[in-house]
């Protein structure tokens, strides 16, 4: 029983990171119909910047802030300088460009930061809380991870639901032409969307790195699991991305705990295939609404 609870807890903690990463993918997919394959490499890049700051200031939190801020700038820059060049209605071109960017950023990271493993400090303790000889797999670091994801998530919900700029961003994502006819600067909204997505991706990058190792390709498994989570949630639905992320975390933790960690990549693939076979529109898609 304790093992089961601990497996669940570990899964949820990991799932929070997948959720953030999936959310970053969904934000871009929703507004531009592009799967941003460079998301992981961008996050690795901002995590390296954070690592430099953590090493020089000694503060994990300042490092996090730097990662988020540089994520915003990097996301906006990628949209303005690279993605926009490809032109609208050229989703395939944009996807290829993000793949190219993925390769380029990863190479650049090895050149700038070195290809070796480097350890990234944890935000807080990595020991589980214990009471009366029983230790549960809930650590202070995990609480910070889950808390940070929750704060960013609620912030995004508030932005989209309750602010004018959030409304304009949603309008631009759903129907760019109509938004422009209503005076919305759609181009600027897309830039902002990429910036916010990269911020969320950067958050995932720092959180997954905390208490662990980073190297130029350390985000690769997060990319796969985050992508499966996004598909599970329906690619179009931010809420779905979060549920999908948590579900992926739990599923993979269960596989690790009860089957064997060797099978985790296979399990991720199995989930992807199962979703595409049974419910390709994902668990939370609103395509029905769109097609009316």
């Amino acid at each position, binding site marked *: 029983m304790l093992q089961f609870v601990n497996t669940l807890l570990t899964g949820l903690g990991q799932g929070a990171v997948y959720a953030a990463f999936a959310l970053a993918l969904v934000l871009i997919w929703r507004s531009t119909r592009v799967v941003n394959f460079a998301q992981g490499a961008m996050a690795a890049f901002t995590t390296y910047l954070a690592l430099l700051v953590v090493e020089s200031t000694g503060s994990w939190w300042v490092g996090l802030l730097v990662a988020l801020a540089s994520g915003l700038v990097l996301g906006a820059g990628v949209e303005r300088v690279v993605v926009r060049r490809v032109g609208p209605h050229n989703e395939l071109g944009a996807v290829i460009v993000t793949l190219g960017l993925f390769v380029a950023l990863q190479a650049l990271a090895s050149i700038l930061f070195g290809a070796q493993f480097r350890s990234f400090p944890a935000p807080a303790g990595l020991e589980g809380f214990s009471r009366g000889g029983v230790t549960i797999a809930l650590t202070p670091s995990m609480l910070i991870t889950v808390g940070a994801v929750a704060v960013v998530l609620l912030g995004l919900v508030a932005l989209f639901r309750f602010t*004018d700029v959030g*409304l*304009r961003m*949603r*309008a631009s994502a*759903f*129907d760019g*032409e*109509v*938004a*422009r*006819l*209503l*005076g*919305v*600067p*759609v181009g600027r909204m897309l830039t902002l969307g990429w910036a916010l997505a990269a911020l969320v991706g950067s958050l995932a990058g720092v959180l997954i790195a905390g208490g662990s190792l980073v190297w130029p390709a350390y985000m690769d498994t997060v990319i796969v699991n985050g992508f499966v989570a996004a598909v599970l949630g329906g690619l179009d639905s931010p809420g779905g991305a979060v549920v999908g992320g948590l579900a992926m975390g739990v599923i993979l933790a269960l596989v690790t705990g009860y089957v064997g960690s060797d099978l985790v990549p296979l399990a991720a693939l199995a989930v992807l295939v199962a979703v595409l076979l049974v419910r390709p529109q994902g668990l939370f898609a*609103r395509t029905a*609404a*769109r097609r*009316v």
Partner: protein
Amino acid sequence: MSAPATTAALRVTGLTAGYGPVTALDGVDVTAGPGRITAVLGANGAGKTTLLRTVSGLVPARSGSVHAGDVDLTGAAPERIARAGIAHVPEGRGVITELTVEENLRLGALLGKARGRTDTAIDDVYAMFPPLAERRRRDAHTLSGGERQMLVIGRALACGPDVLLLDEPSLGLAPRVVAQIFELLRERVEGSRLAVLLVEQNARSALSVADIGVVLNLGRVVASAPAAELAADDALRHAYLGF
């Protein structure tokens, strides 16, 4: 060019536009005056939609010009043209179905406020179209065709426009609903400074609500006259208006 008739809220001069090898508009002159409804009529493919899309910047003009009052908007981006006071309700309506009724209206009102128009724009729309008020919290995809038409017209009016471009508002609606919407539009325009350019294939009902009619055929203006005069011209009606 010296300023001619200052009364025109919208002045389109010698407008030519098209798609690749197709010339859809060929030197079109149209004006829309404040407090008036100007109907643009013509058969399928006459170029009516292209005219509106070129005015609002969605289709680039090949030559000619578009002025709102004294402001030259030729070649401007759609969002700039919208901010200059031209509201375009596109063919097929343009409801953003994922947003609620009120969010759709708020998008219009945000632009209206930026243009220094009333704070009460949304309430004004609800007063004009009470069915929308009852459904304000619903997702817009739950609305009927008539309600959607009310929503997009209301949203455009909430922008506080000087010029309203309507593309086939009657499409797919029951005649009774069309009559009702046209009547509300008439009331809204009467005595106001709003200029309406109403594109319709349904020439009979358009002419019944319009002050002036312009007939397009193959991208050219073939007639332009007071609505009653056009409606009384049997030869023209049979040739171009299908009634």
